[in-house]
């Protein structure tokens, strides 16, 4: 594929992530923090996010599996996940966490299990999408091109 085509594909793909609400403007903030002194900043932060969030999801699942569920503990984990997903711009994960916290407040185990599934789904989706995004960026760089400076013009 020719460089121009690759860059066009990246632009369209990026646009779709915002239009579908998978990412929000906070992801753009992250991209704008990246500079020559730290050219892999976004990949590093996103990798850190997925590392931490996978542990949190496991902790939540374990907490919900207890005979006597500690909803405060579950809520604390969800709160942390909500915070970090908001910080990286993973909007749908964040929104799923907001709904999850309501279930924790209601102390409804079934509801919480459904919410956990929803969060896991959104988490899986954003992870796949971002892997694709980074792969597209790498292909452009490998072909001698540059990834355009992030901006939201749509």
């Amino acid at each position, binding site marked *: 594929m020719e460089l121009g085509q690759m860059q066009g594909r990246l632009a369209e793909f990026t646009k779709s992530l915002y239009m579908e609400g998978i990412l929000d403007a906070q992801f753009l*903030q*992250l991209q*704008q*923090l990246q500079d020559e002194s730290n050219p892999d900043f976004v990949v*590093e*932060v996103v990798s*850190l996010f997925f590392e*931490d969030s996978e542990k949190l999801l496991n902790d939540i699942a374990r907490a919900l599996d207890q005979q006597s569920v500690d909803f405060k503990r579950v809520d604390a984990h969800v709160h942390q996940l909500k*915070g970090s997903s*908001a910080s990286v711009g993973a909007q749908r994960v964040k929104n799923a966490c907001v709904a999850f916290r309501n279930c924790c407040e209601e102390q409804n185990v079934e509801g919480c299990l459904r919410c956990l599934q929803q969060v896991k789904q959104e988490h899986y989706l954003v992870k796949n999408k971002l892997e694709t995004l980074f792969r597209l960026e790498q292909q452009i760089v490998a072909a001698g091109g540059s990834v355009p400076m992030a901006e939201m013009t749509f």
Partner: protein
Amino acid sequence: MSSTNTENWMKDIGVVDLTGVGGGSTSAATKITALVVDDDSVNQTIHSKMLENLGIQNQVETIFDLILMDMDMPVMNGIEATRKLREMGVRSIIAGVSTCTRDEREQKEFMEAGLDDFQEKPLTTPKLVSILHKLNKKC
């Protein structure tokens, strides 16, 4: 990040010399140090990078101009930590940074513990610049 935006923010908070004496450099300008207090490593990384991009050093062993204080931390929460720092006589600007709390009373308690400012997460560079304006006023 747009270098124009960054330069404007840096001039705005005084970390770039405006007088022209230092040739518009950072060497003749105010040096600000900051401490990020957050139990979440993603937030620590992002907030540190924001500060670094504004020419602000994130250090451990120093007297800080600015402390970014998270609210929810497992061993000691932000309210207690802020209270303790003020009791110790710490005069740094302390800015609470937290996700929107449902409980307004909790946010009020956080402010009363000794905060100079409060910003909702996610933190952005414009929000950080707004906090840093308080630093310039306090000085």
